[in-house]
């Protein structure tokens, strides 16, 4: 009896330890949100509040003068992400189609590790590739004096989101039951028609979540983008040859030496980025839930 009591206590203690570990994740999320938002919203309240509207609609970032506008960065982040998605999703999806519907096992065995490797390459190296190859190439055709541009950012991001899109789309396509394909083929559709009219629509939600995850990855990417974007402090984007400073690189560049209000403004930039990511996450969760219900 006595032994069982000791044993029960140990069981309970250990279970509590397990529970506490599981709560670390929850605490982390809450802490990140609370700290980043507290620090980031701080400059907009109190005596010397910076007008929030100026922050969100300003196109000039000049910490030296105490001017902090980030509209141009928001636009840059969104446009660059859209560009990457518009090109990256079709290429990624079609590669996934190739892997799951067309290629034979041998070819898949070569391409899939290649995609995995592409996913594993550190993002800095994509930046190195951008600086070494993409920027010089753009320099040859750009009307401007530098190759760093939103075009370079888009190209780098397109490459970087490919593995995410391919892997998730392929999983979604493979999950489509064979009877869908058989039914379509049986009705006289060609194999290509079957892919585009039966298989892809059936895998719709998986492909959509792949695209959304790609958006998340592209909008949050920092190091590779920082190397090819040029990062000017101010100025609205007007052509694909223009240099940009996305939200992420604004934080990464200035955080090392910023203090006081400037540092708080970087956190405010982080808050804006965070809100974008939260929207992306919510869309993601909605899609997966919907797919689960179906």
């Amino acid at each position, binding site marked *: 009896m006595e032994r069982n009591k000791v044993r029960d206590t140990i069981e309970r203690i250990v279970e509590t330890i397990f529970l506490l570990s599981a709560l670390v994740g929850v605490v982390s999320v809450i802490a990140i949100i609370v700290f980043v938002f507290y620090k980031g919203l701080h400059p907009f309240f109190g005596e010397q509040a910076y007008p929030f509207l100026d922050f969100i609609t300003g196109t000039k970032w000049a910490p030296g003068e105490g001017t902090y506008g980030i509209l141009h960065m928001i636009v840059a982040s969104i446009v660059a992400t859209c560009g990457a998605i518009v090109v990256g999703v079709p290429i990624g999806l079609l590669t996934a189609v190739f892997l799951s519907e067309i290629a034979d096992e041998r070819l898949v065995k070569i391409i899939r590790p290649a995609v995995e490797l592409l996913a594993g390459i550190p993002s800095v190296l994509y930046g190195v590739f951008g600086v070494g190859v993409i920027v010089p190439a753009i320099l040859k055709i750009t009307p401007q004096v530098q190759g760093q541009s939103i075009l370079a950012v888009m190209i780098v991001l397109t490459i970087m989101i490919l593995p995410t899109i391919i892997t998730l789309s392929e999983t979604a396509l493979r999950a489509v039951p064979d009877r869908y394909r058989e039914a379509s083929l049986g009705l006289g559709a060609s194999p290509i028609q079957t892919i585009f009219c039966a298989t892809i629509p059936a895998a719709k939600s998986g492909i959509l979540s792949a695209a959304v995850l790609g958006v998340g990855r592209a909008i949050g990417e920092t190091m590779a983008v920082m190397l090819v974007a040029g990062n000017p402090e101010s100025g609205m984007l007007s052509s694909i040859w223009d240099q940009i400073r996305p939200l992420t690189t604004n934080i990464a560049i200035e*955080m090392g030496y910023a203090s006081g209000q400037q540092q708080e403004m970087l956190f405010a930039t982080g808050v804006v980025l965070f809100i974008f990511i939260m929207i992306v996450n919510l869309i993601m969760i909605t899609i997966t839930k919907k797919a689960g219900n179906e």
Partner: protein
Amino acid sequence: MRKNQKIKDGILSSCIYASAAFTVCILVFIIGFIFVKGIPKINGHFLTAAYDDETAYVIAETIPEENRASDKNLLSEIGVYYDLEDDGVSMKVTDFTADSTAKDVTNMNGEGEKISKGDLITSIEPNDANHVRIKVTKVGGGIMPMMVSTLFLVVLSLLIAAPVGILSAIYLNEYAKPGRLLTIIRFAIQNLSGIPSIIYGLFGALVFVQMLGMQYSILAGALTISIILLPTMISTTEESLKAIPKGIRESSLGLGATKLQTTLRVVVPNALPGILVAVILSIGRIVGESAALLLTAGTVAAIPNALTGEGAAAATLTIKAYTILKETGDVSTSCGIGVVLIVLIILLNLASKAVTARFMKKQG
């Protein structure tokens, strides 16, 4: 109609082939670029030397006058052969005589040092009757400190993240009952995985670096990365726990084992390969991480000598690849680091494949 369809099919299928070809080509191109630019950089010195030049005065005993050999390009008082550098002053150490005293010298703090091949001697003057004072420069340009820092960071981060992640997964899969708590935990973890690493960096810079006073340090970096690792760690471990058939647990419980005994003696051992894969994947993630580290661990190219505070800042391989490129525009050195990184990633991928394959085989 039929013909139209054929043309359409043709176009679409060539799009598919083109896309797949594009993906493969881009990979080959990236890897090819980094290897072609980087491989010429890789040599013994690059892999073993410090990054910065280090210049110091050392005191060496002189060889007794009567034993000194005389030869071309020989510093006879300490028995060192040299090549004169282009500047006409620096002497690059190429070899030692048998009785050379240069391998056992003391620095200005009285600590033992040694002069090695490749070091530059820029001046040598008498110190006292039988000692000389030599100004030596250990030539930098290597990535040793960054490799060591990366290793430190991997070990530290795993020490923090692995226990927490694995225990979390055990709780979620073995203990938790469906309900609000479980929903909250899952929701949190799902959200955690979507946060970009620069936000983690901001958080780490605020909480660990500033508020907890760790300064730019390897521990601040490791703590930040540990949070980044949690979601993958948890979900990969959970997958392997889920794969264990219910029957195994039930038989253990039926034999009178407690829940804890069942978990530790039956469930975890069976899930070990999966947990190992989770750890390997995490190593890859740590090695490749950069944005969060830039804001928490700093960019100092030296081996850290403390966990926090002064002397604890450290640049990992990825951070150095970035700063070199940013500050000097030196693509080839960054590519040299890139080669090391890619080789590491490939090895980790192969390791995780090997573990999974063995696991599958065992399961049948």
